[in-house]
């Protein structure tokens, strides 16, 4: 199987998973008595926890491992500038595919919900503001822009996938075991999303369904979210720069 084929399969899987989760969310919402709209599809269904925290990391890590499967072969290794250079390639590649994946998922979520309900937005801005204030206690700004919301949401959600993918790839670098790496992604899902999650910084930048207008527009949690994401990435990179030069290649 060629590299491109692997990427196409991974991309199709991302679309199928996003569509399946979105349809499931729409059915669930309708059963609960409310009509979801395209905005819900983009900002909630397309970024659902199961996608961001489990399915996407699994697909992307497996795809990355396949693409980089020759990287640890001696003939490839000795031609790199350094071990850090090898890691940096993984870093950049992972970030790009995380952005593309989350972008696709949000768009698929929005399109499918729009096709189901034919509505872009359920309520007027005043109703949204009142509803969000009643629900969260946060006052929304008078002006907000969906484009800005999209960019911020894309940034934050892709960062969450990216952090998980980076941790998993870091594990692979030192264990060289695909099976163990995949298992660790599932363990991360439990650890980062479970009860212990509230003690973990990553939890803070999770965009929660139903409060996304406030969270994304009011700025209450945007800076906090971006800061935590940056801290997580910087910590991973610092650890990588300490441990990666010590990596041995026994293949």
């Amino acid at each position, binding site marked *: 199987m060629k590299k491109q084929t692997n990427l196409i399969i991974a991309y199709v899987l991302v679309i199928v998973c996003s569509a399946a989760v979105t349809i499931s969310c729409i059915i669930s919402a309708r059963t609960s008595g409310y009509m979801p709209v395209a905005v819900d599809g983009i900002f909630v269904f397309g970024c659902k926890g199961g996608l961001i925290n489990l399915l996407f990391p699994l697909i992307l890590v497996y795809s990355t491992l396949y693409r980089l499967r020759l990287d640890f072969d*001696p*003939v490839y290794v000795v*031609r790199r500038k*350094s*071990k850090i250079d090898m890691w940096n390639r993984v870093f950049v590649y992972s970030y790009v595919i995380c952005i593309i994946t989350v972008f696709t998922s949000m768009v698929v979520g929005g399109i499918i919900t729009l096709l189901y309900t034919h509505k872009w937005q359920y309520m007027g801005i005043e109703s949204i503001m009142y509803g969000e204030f009643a629900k969260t206690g946060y006052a929304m700004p008078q002006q907000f822009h969906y484009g800005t919301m999209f960019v911020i949401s894309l940034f934050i959600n892709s960062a969450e996938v990216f952090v998980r993918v980076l941790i998993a790839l870091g594990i692979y670098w030192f264990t060289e075991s695909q099976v163990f790496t995949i298992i660790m992604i599932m363990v991360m899902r439990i650890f980062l999303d479970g009860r212990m999650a509230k003690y973990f910084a990553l939890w803070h930048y999770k965009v929660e369904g139903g409060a996304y207008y406030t969270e994304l527009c009011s700025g209450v949690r945007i800076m906090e979210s971006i800061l935590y994401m940056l801290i997580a990435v910087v910590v991973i990179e610092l650890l990588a720069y300490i441990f990666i030069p010590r990596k041995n290649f026994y293949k």
Partner: protein
Amino acid sequence: MEIKINQLTKQIKGVTVLEDITLTMQGGKIYGLKGPNGCGKTMLMRAISGLILPSSGSVEIDGQVLGKDISFPPSIGLLIEYPSFVNGYTGLKNLQMIASIQNKVTEEQVREAIQRVGLNPDDKRTFKKYSLGMKQKLGIACAIMEDPELIILDEPVNALDEAGISMVRDILQDYKKRSALIIIACHDKEELEFLSDEIYSISEGKITGHDVLPGDDSK
């Protein structure tokens, strides 16, 4: 090129695979490593390539310490065990992909390297359909295609017929004349003695002997 190994010791999970190895190697010579299976020949080659880091001691390449000043030797071609070529690609495409990492050689030079080992660069067969000997030749072509100053070959004549072995001899002598430093490991004692200028014997991770062979212009 000069390689200096100073009191190199490598332990893996508590087992000492290389112990207190000290030696110096100079460009323009072929160094042979001999010893039984599992004695540490390949591990020493990995250490010189920068693939593994010493538990203690150091490996210097032209005064630069591997793992501190540089990660890998700056100009190296190697064949250690079986290279992971892509089964679905032709020999040419495989080598082009590897050459693209450093981008130091042109397609023409890659083709020349393939021809040099007796393969056809326009062969449409994929790597999967290569015979063992052809795979070995492609591995050697990969090692020499960038005209490296340091060539490390583990069992270079494995699976090769008489003509193939003769071809390897010619290539090594040619690179020796170009002042490359060549390190080979080979189970065939006669072949190793024929090819090498100096031979290091290794046993249980230690250097147990060093023979400087008499010069032979007929090599």
